[in-house]
């Protein structure tokens, strides 16, 4: 089943409340996904360093002196902030790939959750409420964010199988549905040099978008071509540094509701997830059309939304 929530702020005075609003939405979707939960949050990008969010099952051991060890190996300045099983490493953006290689040497049990200038991903196995509490998600602020509650179908209930999936710098994807051609697509993408870490179908969807964008497509084009190349059921919500997008497969049996006011654009698998948002009674509420790409960006005028397909 799975539940998806998303919140894109037009009115940045709400930014300090983003975590609170998104956490409330996420917990409402517990019935749709009690196995694991995750959140991708786009925070402030004012610092010059970029962020590499990593996870460890043994944070005390793995995170102790991590920034120092990594900085020494990369010969650059690295700082860290630990949040439960996750740790955000601040380092120069051009060092991501080198850092990934070094980490696999110096801390082999560390898993990479996300990389980007503003994106941080927090996800763990457990009820959404427990996951939200352990990371103190409600205290987080940001410009936009996406959350997911998982009811597993295609792969094991693990941290790595939880959503959101990081698809490239500052990009992430969450998914409700199931892809049926993910095995053949995974083989193809790996031959093309795309890193895929799990047996999860959604990660293949994420990697597919990354691959398309590596080859010159913008996000709208990548989403549009996913309608031709991905077989199965899906409602996708994707995040980028500047905004978020929504696309549903042509059958559109996986639910989706959107709401828009002057202050925000919100996504929920069900209307229930949106009921406590400010001004929801006056919001424009609608169901996104099948096989149609929607995208909202902080770079566009705040009231427009683009329908690329």
């Amino acid at each position, binding site marked *: 089943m799975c539940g998806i929530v998303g919140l894109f702020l037009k009115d940045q005075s709400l930014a300090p409340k983003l975590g609170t609003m998104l956490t409330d939405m996420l917990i409402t979707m517990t019935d749709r996904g009690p196995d694991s939960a995750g959140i991708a949050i786009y925070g402030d990008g004012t610092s010059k360093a970029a962020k590499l969010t990593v996870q460890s099952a043994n944070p005390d051991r793995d995170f102790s002196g991590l920034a120092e060890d990594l900085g020494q190996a990369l010969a650059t300045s690295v700082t860290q902030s630990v949040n439960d099983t996750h740790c955000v490493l601040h380092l120069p953006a051009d060092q991501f790939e080198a850092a990934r290689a070094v980490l696999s040497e110096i801390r082999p049990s560390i898993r990479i959750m996300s990389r980007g200038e503003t994106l941080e991903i927090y996800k763990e196995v457990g009820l959404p409420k427990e996951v939200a509490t352990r990371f103190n998600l409600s205290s987080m602020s940001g410009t936009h964010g996406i959350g997911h509650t998982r009811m597993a179908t295609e792969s094991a209930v693990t941290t790595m199988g939880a959503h959101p999936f990081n698809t490239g710098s500052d990009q992430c994807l969450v998914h409700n549905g199931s892809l049926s051609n993910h095995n053949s697509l995974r083989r193809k993408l790996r031959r093309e040099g795309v890193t895929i870490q799990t047996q999860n179908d959604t990660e293949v969807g994420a990697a597919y978008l990354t691959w398309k964008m590596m080859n010159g497509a913008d996000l709208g084009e990548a989403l549009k071509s996913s309608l031709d190349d991905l077989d199965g059921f899906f409602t996708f919500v994707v995040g980028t540094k500047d905004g978020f997008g929504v696309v549903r497969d042509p059958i*559109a*049996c996986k*639910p989706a509701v959107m709401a828009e006011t002057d202050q925000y654009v919100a996504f929920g698998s069900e*209307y*229930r997830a*949106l009921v406590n948002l400010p001004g929801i009674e006056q919001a424009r509420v609608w*169901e996104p059309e099948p096989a149609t790409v929607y995208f909202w960006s902080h770079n566009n005028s705040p009231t427009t939304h683009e329908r690329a397909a």
Partner: protein
Amino acid sequence: MQTYDLEANGLSGLNSTLQSQNTETNQTSWEVVNPKGSHAIAVGLDAPIEVTVKGSTGYYCAGMNQQATIRVEGSVGPGVAENMMSGEVIVDGDASQYAGATGHGGLLVIKGNASSRCGISMKGIDIVVHGNIGHMSAFMAQAGNLVVCGDAGDALGDSLYEARLFVRGTVQSLGADCVEKEMRPEHLEVLKDLLDRAGCDAKPEEFRRYGSARQLYNFDVDNTAAY
């Protein structure tokens, strides 16, 4: 007027209270406040009572309804009035997918738009949508009337049996075995009655009628190769 606060008193209490009303009840008028998108509101009713839901609902609102009149002052999630037997369900806003699915009787009125699979496998229910409907609507519809004042999406009436479909706007495409049919006086009469009851001022003459070509009813030996 009885008022029930769904947020304060819970769903089971609402449905058991409404389901326990019988034809002799003098509590004929009910109001449900704070629905907040909850699922399965006012399901399985079997008494001539009026229920007004003050806000939007989630899945399966007014399912399996008999006799009752249920109005939703908001939008509804998937499966509104699923398997309705009789009575009336009026939605002031939009309806999500499979509105009125498998309904045997009664009238479902949607004042806004309905999304995909509206009236799927309908078996005698009448559905009037003031706005548009999505793809695969009236799939395998067996009996009843589906009236659409706006446009219909792809594959309308795929594998249709004997339900009648009336569309005022455009039809994106017809499904397998669904064809346009002649609008005869008896159809205009049925349509006029449904539009009146649904509070819609559209004129019956503005609609086109679609129905089954009945080519899928029997095995055709020319199709042997497909099996």
